[in-house]
């Protein structure tokens, strides 16, 4: 895999984003709610060796039950509105919603109004907005990190985000909506 290593050596050097110094580990669950697949292509690269989102303490996970952030793409079709809601309800709290791409933000070349339930902001509380059609892998990483930084630094939002520092196991008797036996991950 000489080619891979050489590519990484040259391109990483030019990468503008650097891992921050704040300790954090957040899990992202992606839901495609009717995108053109552009956001998915770019998001998939974000987890690849070039952009390596794990450097920033972020990772894409398979289940909403393990996720802190619901990352939604697409204008939310009528057919995806319910699966999206189910995924959101399956997440432990505190949880965040990120709108990825112009369609999720409700401002792109959308389509037939009858087929759309969105925009996302009318269905779920959107915390992070990442514009672009589609946003490049670097803009997705920057959008997520900037959004998280803004939330953690803003006192009014401090209860909406979970970081390694403030995440504690629930007190006995604490109810985690939707799944009584969920325990938060510990790192």
């Amino acid at each position, binding site marked *: 895999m000489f080619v891979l290593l050489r590519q990484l050596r040259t391109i990483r050097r030019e990468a503008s984003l650097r891992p921050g110094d704040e300790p954090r580990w957040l899990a992202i669950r992606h839901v495609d709610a009717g995108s053109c697949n552009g956001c998915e292509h770019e998001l998939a690269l974000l987890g690849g060796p070039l952009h390596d989102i794990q450097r920033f303490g972020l990772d894409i996970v398979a289940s909403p039950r393990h996720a802190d952030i619901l990352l939604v793409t697409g204008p939310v*079709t009528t057919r995806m509105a319910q699966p999206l809601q189910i*995924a959101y309800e399956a997440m432990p709290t505190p949880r965040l919603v990120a709108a990825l791409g112009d369609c999720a933000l409700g401002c792109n070349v959308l389509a037939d109004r009858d087929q759309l339930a969105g925009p996302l902001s009318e269905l779920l509380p959107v915390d992070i907005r990442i514009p672009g059609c589609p946003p*490049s892998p670097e803009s997705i990483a920057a959008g997520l990190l900037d959004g998280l930084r803004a939330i953690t630094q803003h006192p009014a939002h401090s209860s909406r985000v979970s970081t390694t520092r403030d995440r504690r196991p629930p007190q006995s008797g604490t109810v985690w909506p939707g799944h009584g036996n969920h325990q938060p991950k510990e790192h």
Partner: protein
Amino acid sequence: MTVPELIDARELRTALTGTLESGARFVGAWATADGGWRVALATVQGTRVLVCTPAGGRVDSIVQTVGAAVWDEREAHDLYGLEFDGHEPLRTLVDHSAALEAWTTPVRGGGVHQVAVGPIHAGVIESGHFRFHCVGDRILALDPRLFYKHRGLERAAEGRGYGQALPYAARACAACSVANTVAYAQAVEDAVGLWPPAELRRQRTLLLELERAYNHLNDIGAVCAGVGFAPGSMAFAVLKDRAQELCRQAFGHRFLFGAVAVGHGPATLDAAQADALRAQLRELRADAAAAWRDLEFSASLQARLDGVGVLSHDRALQFGAVGPAARASGVVRDVRTDSPRLAYMGFVPASLPQAGGDVAARFQIRAAELEATWELLDGLLSEPLTRSAATWQEPGGGVGVGRVESPRGETVCMVELAAGRVARLHLRSASYANWPALADATAGNLLPDFPLINKSFELCYACVDR
């Protein structure tokens, strides 16, 4: 030029059989809001469109003669209310309100159970639902249920001018946006009577091949991911990312949005830019070849590909499979050999010495096609790219069909114009043609092999759902 042929709906089957016997091939069918039904056929003289208006919304089904038309008829039934005599049972496709029995294959017997997957999948994957009928781990049948991403793009494009409707064709799918928009532009130009000059043909061909390059790099990596071979999937993810960056540097967008227009070509390159792109593509080609060699010598990867997800030659023909998937099954057919509106003079489609129709064959055909694409790109970039506009010919017939070889196969766009506006837009992407073939190739395989089989076809959901 496409000439719509008005026929009596009762004569459709007869007219179709006659045309097919003379060597024509079905390329798509679509209904219209005023109760019309159209069937498009590719012939050596060009595209023929049979136009009819079935009385009382009932028409004879053509699926007995054209197996590829099954989804077209199911879609026309769900979205436009047409009834098809002889299409039994006519299962729902786009309509999600029907009960499970109305859209799944009846499978009975000892130990048969269903496994439901999706619409949300575990990775960064498009939304769609699969219902597997299994005995143990063995798949007996698969019913894919797509259209979760149905945005009504075709209807939204209707009533708009040619230029305004183009973004709807582009947004059907990012990864096939060049193919979809070139097919759309060709359809409109066919309908109004425009012809692209050599420079415009070269420009669109270049864009199509750039799109194919990053898609094939992606799809080779996807097969590696399908067997959990991380070094391969990572190497090709980086190569694909580099190819997309070249697209952005040259034409301003990583998916080449905005580079295709109706009647002219907005994408230009001066001599220095063309030379730079050519040099960077040569570098990428060398790196891709080295990465592919690594894959060829990885015994653990290669051992997982043979004999999995076989689409036989006969089944590929029967389902009307297209693109690399069809060529991997020995159906050596490529729209690039029949594209007078593009610059593919003397193009010879890739073929394999042993086209087994399995995952291994679909993996290898992409590498072979990638070589041809690098070669084409190198030739196309030998001169700078200048602005050019299509020229008027004799006025068209108001109906146009564009056919383009997308990275996944033949993509067909049909356009009907009225008073200078789009009255009907229909996009039949390569993925649409291949989903039924993919479902068929899955039968008889192990359930855990489905992700691999799926990745080897690497079909879009967005293109199909629209």
